[in-house]
């Protein structure tokens, strides 16, 4: 499944534009990055795709999924898309997971909402999903608050991928995590989307993250795409000043030196 965003603009009620004329494409099974500083509008784009924009904002343009403009769909149809074709992972897993439900209840939620499975089938799928994200079945009965940040984010990924979505939106999935947990979560996102043949739209402010996980990327600045291309080329030869600045900043916070 591919997603094709054409001339997407997002405006506030008072007429201010937050995202201006953004066109962006994720082909089936492709991993694409969307990079920009905070306030650049990158999260609004993911929310427009999911259909969860704040009520004070309006999206114009087209978001085509398999040729269907999902901006024109009813609220019910869009809800059906979330958790089946589309899934999302957010920055703060503890805010995304229901704190009064156990890990297995959280992970099972999309199955419960969108699929008619028996209790036993659901349990098997949940345990499989936890295994795939590298979590031991012992954790299944814990509550989110009893997990580390990295573990909680894996639970969120398990929940996102349990319904075998065709496109995974990941909005700053590693920003709240430690260096090692960041690496594990990135590796997981890359390998799991690959296994399932799902596309990935990875939203981040950090080229270090984008460079490790994506094949192509778009650079967003003040609501507009200023540059796009193959990630490795864009990193090696950024054209726009803004992109150069982001690349330089990412280089600065990476470990330099040859050995180790």
């Amino acid at each position: 499944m591919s997603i094709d965003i054409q001339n997407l603009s997002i405006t506030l009620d008072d007429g201010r534009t937050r995202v201006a004329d953004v066109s962006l494409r994720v082909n089936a099974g492709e991993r694409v990055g969307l990079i920009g500083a905070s306030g650049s509008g990158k999260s609004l784009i993911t929310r427009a795709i999911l259909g969860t924009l704040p009520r004070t904002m309006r999206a114009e343009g087209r978001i085509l999924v398999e040729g269907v403009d999902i901006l024109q769909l009813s609220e019910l149809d869009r809800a059906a898309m979330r958790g089946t074709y589309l899934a999302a992972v957010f920055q703060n897993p503890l805010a995304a997971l229901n704190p009064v439900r156990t890990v297995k209840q959280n992970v099972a939620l999309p199955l419960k909402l969108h699929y008619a499975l028996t209790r036993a089938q659901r349990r098997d799928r949940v345990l499989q999903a936890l295994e795939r994200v590298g979590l031991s079945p012992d954790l299944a009965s814990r509550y989110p608050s009893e997990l580390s940040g990295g573990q909680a984010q894996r639970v969120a990924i398990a929940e996102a991928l349990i319904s075998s979505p065709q496109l995974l939106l990941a909005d700053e999935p590693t920003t709240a995590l430690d260096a090692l947990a960041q690496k594990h979560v990135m590796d997981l996102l890359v390998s799991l989307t690959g296994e399932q043949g799902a596309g990935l739209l990875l939203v981040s402010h950090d080229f270090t993250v984008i460079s490790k996980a994506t094949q192509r990327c778009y650079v967003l600045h003040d609501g507009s795409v200023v540059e796009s291309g193959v990630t490795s080329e864009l990193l090696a030869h950024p054209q726009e000043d803004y992109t150069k600045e982001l690349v330089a900043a990412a280089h600065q916070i990476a470990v330099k030196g040859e050995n180790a």
Partner: protein
Amino acid sequence: MSILSLNHVTKRYRGSALPALDDVSFSVGDGEHVAIVGESGSGKTTSLNIALGFDVPSSGDVQVAEPTTTGLVFQNPAASLDPRWRVERIVREGVPGVGEADVRAALEAVSLDYDELAQRYISDISGGQAQRVAIARALVSHPTLLVADEPVSAVDVLGKKHIIESLRSVQNERSLASLIVLHDLGVAQQLSERIIVMQAGRVVEDGATAEVLAHPQHRYTAQLIDAARW
């Protein structure tokens, strides 16, 4: 001569089997720039709290040379700066005899413009600017030791860059020592000449930054380096 040292500090919290700190010793020399690196739960923030006197060790002791003035920077500027105060008032707080010129100089030290920012509220400036305001606030009392807890992890990459540059210029231009807690070795490489790596409440590595990065002795350090590589 060291201005701060922890000697065989162990910290146990009631109700937890493992100690949060297990026989931790390290020191910060006069004018030395030290980073403590580790994951959350490694004990790096507990060490900092004990060094600052916010928490008391279960055993072992902390020594601070006289006279030492400490400047303090927290992780998240949105939480550590009062949202209903203007920048100027924030920077001045609690330091008697500070005038406009001192605030101006402190802001300048972190490349912020007094005329542009002094009368603003935190919600009206970027996260990177806000964190530099927090650094200016720490500098205004002319500290001999600057202590910072994860000063770059709550802001985006451009903010990080500006904060790192500001901290570096402060380290170069002011005669102070620094103790900075980080989870990212890439940032530690920029901000320290010595690195202390902590894991599960213990110091697993302590050495010159270049040496630790080039020849990590501990497997955990090597993993951290790998995670922070470009």
